[in-house]
C-alpha cells in the first residue's frame, strides 16, 4: 500500500461535517434493515419485506451524492454505478415480480424459455429454480456478509493498529508480532483452517475474514498513526491532557480516513472473492440459500455442458461485476486523491 497518501483536510470543516452526517445516516438506513433482513433469515414475502422500503430511496440518494462528488473520474463513477446497481437490487428484490428463489418449478429450462405461462429470462437450474431470481436474491447474501465481515475486520484492525501505533513500545512489539504470524499464512490456508474448525456459516466467515484482513489493516493504520502522531494537533491534545483513548479516536481516526476508504473498497472486493470462493469450496454458506458461490458449486456438478453453461456463467459474471465495481471505485478514488 505504498501509494497511499493522506488526504488533505477539506476546506470547510462545518460543511463536511453535515455532509458526513447525512451520508452516515443514509448508509445506516440502507445497512441496518438489509443486514437485519438477511441475518435473521426471514422468509421472503412476509411483512418483514417492508422494512427494506426506506432503503430504496436511501440507495438512490447515496448514489446521487457520490455521483456529484466523484463525477470528475469516470472510473469511480462506473464502479459506483455497478456497486449501487447491486445495492439497489439487494434492497428492492422482495418487491420485484420474481419467482420464489428456492421453489423448484421446471428443471433445465434454457434462457428465454417459455413453458406454460412462465417465462424464464435466464433459465432454471437443475432443481428447476429460476436463475434470474436466485441471482438477484443472491446479491443480498454476498453484500451483507461481505460488508459486515469487512466492517468487523476494520474495527478490529483499526483498534489494534491505533493501539500499536499510538502506544508503541511493548504493545507495538506484541501486536505486530501476532499480526506477522497471521500475515505469514497464505490467506486461503488461513481461511480453510479457521472455517474448517468453526464450521461453515455466514458468521464464521466474518471471523475468518477478520483474522485474514485485520493484520493488514492493522499495519496500515499503525503506519498512519505513527506518522500522524508527530503532528502538531496531536501534540496539542497531549499537552491539553487528553486521555490516550480520546486522542486515538477523536484526533487520530478522522485523519487517517482518506487512505482507509480506498483500502476499504479494495478489501470489499477481496472479501467478496473470498466468500464466493469459500462457498464454492463448501466452506461458506450452506444450501439452500441463493448465493452466487453456491450456484456455481451446484451447477459445476450438475450442468457441465455447453447448453447448460448459463447456470455457471450468470453467477460468475454477477460476482465479477460486483468486484469490478469495488475495484474501479478504489481506483478512481485513489486517482482523485493523488490529483488533489
Amino acid at each position: 500500500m505504498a501509494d497511499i497518501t493522506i488526504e488533505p483536510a477539506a476546506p470547510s470543516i462545518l460543511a463536511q461535517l453535515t455532509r458526513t452526517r447525512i451520508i452516515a445516516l443514509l448508509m445506516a438506513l440502507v445497512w441496518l434493515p438489509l443486514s437485519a433482513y438477511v441475518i435473521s433469515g426471514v422468509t421472503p414475502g412476509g411483512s418483514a419485506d417492508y422494512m427494506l422500503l426506506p432503503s430504496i430511496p436511501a440507495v438512490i440518494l447515496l448514489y446521487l451524492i457520490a455521483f456529484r462528488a466523484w463525477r470528475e473520474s469516470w472510473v469511480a463513477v462506473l464502479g459506483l454505478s455497478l456497486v449501487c446497481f447491486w445495492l439497489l437490487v439487494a434492497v428492492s428484490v422482495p418487491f420485484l415480480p420474481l419467482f420464489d428463489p428456492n421453489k423448484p418449478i421446471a428443471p433445465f429450462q434454457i434462457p428465454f424459455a417459455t413453458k406454460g405461462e412462465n417465462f424464464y429470462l435466464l433459465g432454471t437450474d437443475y432443481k428447476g429454480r429460476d436463475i434470474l431470481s436466485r441471482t438477484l436474491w443472491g446479491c443480498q447474501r454476498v453484500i451483507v456478509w461481505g460488508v459486515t465481515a469487512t466492517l468487523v475486520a476494520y474495527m478490529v484492525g483499526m483498534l489494534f493498529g491505533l493501539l500499536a501505533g499510538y502506544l508503541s513500545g511493548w504493545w507495538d512489539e506484541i501486536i505486530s508480532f501476532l499480526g506477522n504470524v497471521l500475515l505469514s499464512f497464505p490467506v486461503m490456508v488461513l481461511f480453510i483452517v479457521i472455517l474448517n474448525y468453526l464450521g461453515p456459516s455466514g458468521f464464521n466467515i466474518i471471523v475468518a475474514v477478520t483474522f485474514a484482513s485485520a493484520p493488514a489493516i492493522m499495519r496500515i493504520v499503525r503506519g498512519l498513526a505513527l506518522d500522524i502522531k508527530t503532528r502538531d494537533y496531536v501534540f496539542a491534545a497531549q499537552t491539553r491532557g487528553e486521555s490516550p483513548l480520546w486522542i486515538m479516536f477523536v484526533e487520530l481516526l478522522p485523519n487517517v480516513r482518506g487512505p482507509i476508504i480506498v483500502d476499504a473498497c479494495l478489501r470489499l472486493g477481496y472479501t467478496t472473492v473470498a466468500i464466493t470462493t469459500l462457498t464454492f469450496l463448501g466452506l461458506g454458506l450452506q444450501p439452500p440459500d441463493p448465493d452466487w458461490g453456491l450456484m456455481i458449486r451446484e451447477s459445476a456438478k450438475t450442468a457441465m455442458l455447453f447448453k447448460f453453461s448459463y447456470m455457471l456463467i450468470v453467477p460468475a459474471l454477477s460476482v465479477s461485476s460486483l468486484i469490478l465495481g469495488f475495484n474501479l471505485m478504489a481506483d478512481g478514488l485513489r486517482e482523485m486523491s493523488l490529483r488533489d
Partner: protein
Amino acid sequence: MNRREFVRIAALTGLAAGTAYAMAGLADPVMAAETGNLPFPADEADAQSGGILKVAMQIQKMEDPATYSWVEMSNQTRHLLEYLAMTGPDNITRPMLAESWSASDDLKTWTFNIRKGVMWHNGDELTAEHIKWNVERWTDPAIGSSNVGLSSISALVEEVDSGEKDDKGNAKMVKKLRDGAITLVDSHTIQFNLSKPVLSFPEDMYNYPTAILHPSFTPPFSDNPIGTGAYGLAELAVGDKCILKRITKTTDGKDFTYWGGKVYLDEIHYYNFDEDNQLTAFAGGDVDAIYEFSIEQMELAKAVEGNIIAARTAQTLCCRMRVTEPPFDDIRVRKAIVMACDNAAIKALVYPEGGDIGENHHVAPVHPEYFELPPIKRDVEGAKALLKEAGKENLEVTIDVGNTDGPWHQSVAEAMRDQLKDAGITLNVNVMPASNYWEIWAKTGFGATAWTHRPLGTMVLSLGYRTGVPWNESAFASAEFDAALDAAEATLDVEERRAKMETVEKILQDAAVMVQPLYRPVYTITSKKVHGYPAHPTQYHQFNKVWMSA
C-alpha cells in the same frame, strides 16, 4: 407360491439358481445354467477378451477386509477376495465359494458345501478349514469386525465375563465364539450351529466385510493380497488409484486357474474422483464407468453419450422421530406429521424417474417378503384434528438433515416443510454437514437418516427397530413388534413369511415412527463399449462377465 418365489426359495436353500429357474419354467434372465453352478451371468456369445476397464470411484485403503467400512473398499478387493455367497443384481443370493447350502427346519443349523477346486493366488486349495478360520476371526473381539452384528454371526457367539472390571467395578462382558458353534463335517463341508433361528445366513455371507481371506493374512491386505479371484492387486495409492490385473501365475510360479469360468477384462483400473466429479470425469472421457451419479446429475448424464444404468433398491431415507423425545413422545403428534405428508408427491418431486414410494414401515417392494398394505393416504384435516386433541396447534418442529446421501435429502425435507404447512405445522429444516449429522443421527429428536439396501426386509427391521438394539435411532420399543418380527424371521417359506410380515409392517406403520417417502434407484453410467455392466442395488462391482468392445 408363484414361480419367482419358488426361484427365490430354491436359491436360498442352496439349489443352484439356474436349476431353480429351469424348474420353475422361467427363462433364466442372468444365470448361465449351461456353465454349471456359477453365480455369474451367462457368457455373451459375442463377448471379446481383453481391454482395460477404467472406473471413477473414491479410492480407500485396504487394511483388514473384515473391518471394511465403505462399499468402495470392498469393490477394490471384490475381484481378489470372494464370498461364500453372492447376491446378484436381481437381489437373489446364489452360492459362490460355497457350492450349495441347506438349512434345518428350525433354521438353527446351516450346512455349507464348499466348492472344490478353488485355487488361492498362492497355489493352495480352498477348504472348509479356511472358512472356519475366517468366521472365527470375525468373532474375535480383538479384530472388531462389524460382522458380529450380522444376525447369523451373532448367533454363533455368546457373552462371557472377560475377567476384567470396568470403571464402575462391573464385570466386563465380551462376545466370544460359542463352543461347538462351527463343525467341520469334512474337508469341504462346514456346519454352523446357531443359538437362534436365522433366516438370512446366505445373504449375510455377501455382506461386504465377509470376504474370505487366506489364513496367512496379516493386515494390511494391500501388502500381501492373496485371494481366490481372477485379479490381483498391481498398485494401490489411496486417494489416487487402484490397479487390478489378471492373475496368470501363482505366487510360487505355477499356472493359476480361476474357478469361476471365463473372465474378459485384462485389467480393472479404479481412479479416485469425488462423487460429485465422477460424472464430469466420465463426460471428459477419462473413465469408462463410474461408481454412482446422483439424481441431480441426471440431465447431465442424459446429455453425455453412454448407457445409463439404474438399479431398483431398498435404499431409503427415514425422517424418523425419536419416540422418547418431546413432542414426539405423543403419538398423536407423530401421527399428525405422518398424515400431513404425501409420500407419493414427495417421490414424484424428488425422484421422478424410477424408485418406489415408501410406506413408513421400511420394507421395500424389492424385498421378497414385502406385503402390500393398503396405500397410505394424506389426511390434512385428520392431522389438524389430532394436533388439536393433543393441544399442539401451531406445532413447530425442526428436522436435522445431513445430506449424507446427497442433496436430495434436503429436497425431501423441504417438500415435507411445504406439505406440513397445510396442517399448520411449522417445520424448520436444519441442514448440517454430513459428518456432523453422523455424530447426532441416533440422538436427535427428528432427523433424516439414510438406510442402505439389504437383501431381505427382515434384516433392516432387526437392525433398526427391535427394542434396544444399537441402531434403533427412533427408540421405538414394542414387545408386540419384536415378537411378530421373530415369527417372520423363523419362516423360510417366502409366501408364509410374507403373510407374517403384514402384522410387522402394520405395527410399525401404525406407530408413526417415521415419514419414509421413497426408495431410491441408484444410477451409474458406462461408455458404449462396456458390455454386461451389472446394475447392483448396493453398487457392488461384479465384473466377471463385463467385456469391452474394441
